[in-house]
């Protein structure tokens, strides 16, 4: 294979350290005035793309970051550019996006950009859907390797070590393919100042779902979002007998 083009999907989500709260209308979590960052699994995806280039040099001809969402998604794209992506595509929409919509948008972008490898986070930490990568592979008719903890590219072949319940599973696939990242794949780098400055000058193209010919209106309706019940405070018991009795009568576990 003479060159490798990598497309990386990144999503702007509520920062993982923020304690989310349900909004007053009970339609979702509160997002106004809340810190947003790049989805951590997507950071790992960008990092992996950059590491592939560091390993293979000129073989990786281009790393393209793509994000679907409102205007602010450009901030997330700038982060990806600062981490090492070469250019960015912003699919701009204020509509709520379901995984299938995102997969369709990404498949259209892929059709245009013709990447050899698409790397996505295994899931976004806001909706935890874990569907986009799989759906995208289905739409494109490409092989998929999900939950990657190690990615190796050798010529036109891809080898991915996956984290599965029973341990590690190694799969091989032909490129082009879709990979989704798991937590232990790598530790993303910091965005350095020189790279942040360079990122400002890197090209960022904006397109709309209509440009890509994708209808993104949600198919699902969220009826209600509520917080889990508050945890009851612990109790200190005086004796083993009391503990046993409480386990029987209150906790109902014995």
């Amino acid at each position, binding site marked *: 294979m003479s060159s490798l083009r990598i497309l990386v999907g990144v999503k702007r989500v509520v*920062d*993982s*350290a*923020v304690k989310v709260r349900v909004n007053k209308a009970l339609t979702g979590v509160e997002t106004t*005035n809340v*810190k947003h*960052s*790049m989805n*951590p699994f997507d*950071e790992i995806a960008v990092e992996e793309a950059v590491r592939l280039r560091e390993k293979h040099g000129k073989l990786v001809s281009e790393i393209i970051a793509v994000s679907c969402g409102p205007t602010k998604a450009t901030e997330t794209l700038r*982060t990806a550019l*600062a981490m090492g992506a070469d250019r960015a595509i912003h699919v701009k929409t204020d509509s709520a996006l379901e995984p299938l919509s995102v997969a369709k948008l990404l498949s259209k972008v892929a059709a245009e950009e013709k990447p050899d490898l698409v790397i996505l986070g295994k899931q976004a930490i806001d909706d935890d859907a874990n569907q986009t990568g799989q759906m995208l592979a289905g739409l494109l008719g490409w092989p998929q390797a999900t939950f990657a903890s190690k990615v190796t590219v050798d010529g036109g072949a891809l080898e991915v070590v996956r984290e599965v319940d029973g341990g590690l599973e190694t799969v091989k696939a032909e490129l082009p393919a879709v990979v989704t990242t798991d937590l232990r794949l790598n*530790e993303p780098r*910091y*965005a*350095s*100042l*020189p790279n*942040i*400055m360079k990122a400002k000058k890197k090209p960022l193209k904006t397109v709309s779902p209509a440009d890509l010919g994708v209808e993104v209106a949600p198919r699902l309706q969220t009826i209600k979002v509520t917080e889990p019940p508050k945890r009851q405070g612990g109790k200190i018991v005086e004796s083993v007998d009391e503990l046993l009795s409480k386990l029987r009568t209150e906790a109902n576990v014995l």
Partner: protein
Amino acid sequence: MLGAIRARSQFARPLLLRLYHKPARNAQFKKLTSSDMEFFKRVLPAETILATPAVGGTSDPVELEGFNADWLNKYRGDSQVVLRPKTTAEVSQILKYCNENKIAVVPQGGNTGLVGGSVPVHDEVVLSLRNMNKVRSFDDISGIVTCDAGCVLEELDNYVGERGYTMPLDLGAKGSCQIGGNVATNAGGIRFLRYGTLHGSVLGLEVVLPDGTILDNLSTLRKDNTGYDLKQLFIGSEGSLGVITGVSITTPQRPSAVNVAVLGVPSYAAVQDAFRLARRRCGEVLSAFEFWDQSCMGAVLHHQQLKSPLASEFPFYVLVETSGSNKDHDDEKLGSLLEELMESGTVEDGALAQDEQQIRRMWMMREGIPESLGKTGATYKYDISIPIPVLYDIVGDIAGKLKTAGLYQSSADPVKIVCGYGHIGDGNLHLNVVADKFQNRVTEVFEPYVYEWVASHRGSISAEHGVGLMKRDYLGYSKPKEMIDYMRRIKAMFDPNGILNPYKVL
């Protein structure tokens, strides 16, 4: 978090040597008898008393370890009794009795101090405030919180944080230190640059005097010019005038937008340039400007298992933080500062945190320094205020003296690290010397030299750590005789029998 780690590792290392000057026990203080214990038992619930068999109790002396030794394991007392009252009235009864019977008392908060101020020297009764840990009231409009002295700083910050506010002080020991101790020692920390001293943010105190008098000055007024402002005397008095039992403190709005960058800086002169420019460009949103040297960075990356945000090593690192209410506005200000710093070459490399986790990691690189040095060996700590231009000179100076003395040349030598870090904006340097153990041949190289050096620059021998036992004999390097004399008079007025935190401060 640091606090919890400290609490666990507190007694792991047998580094203790009697290196500090331990004053002889004052024979005027009464030794505890069974009748004293009877009184304590009458006043306090049984579970709030720890007493060893030596005074007729049943507690294993091990249970008192955490009250007798400081977390650096440098200072150690021999108290047989720990009292942990739950109410101000109980504190009052205890102090009144101890005063009448000339029983020495050491008030203790989270015991995270660095100058031996919070642990007994001999057999003083430890009066721990940890059971007084309730928030008494919070005013959602003014952001003023009134609470017991034993509230842990981090828990208070979480409490006001849920209500949209933030504590005006923050320090590495926040998970263990208590607000009463913070006030009693006039703690500084990393928010000082933005929110200033506790002399400004503490609005009122409830203090129990040695004779049992409760000075109720728990004001929640921002303005109150009615006579002498007595509470100011207790802020920074290190438990030598009275026992703080309640605090009211004004808390600023919690910033909704926080940015943190770590910068690699080629020289100390450039650190100063960067600070000057940061103030000019970021103005009111600048909330921290911390610096540390490569020796600190090496220790912290190793012990905290962190990865440097920068591609290479630099003589100095700077952490700059902005906090504000409008992210776009702050981003723009910080962005233009960082660009200017890079383009002018003042800063050679840097990284800007992209998410909250990176912000925490970057702060860990600064806040994790004391703990990381502590894990490397016995740490001599000097906390000095000197004019910013000469602030760092002392580090090279001391390193040179140690090398000349043949103590800091090869890995076999006793001194492992000589380093400096601190709050550049406040003119406050933490000079640390890490040795394999505390030992006189090392100590005498820089004591009292450090103090003489500070005095020659009209600096302070204790910027934020206080005097305690460690610096009592060196107070004269920072304060003229007349002032110390008046301090003594004030001490005698509040505590004529000298029972409160004896052997310390003065």
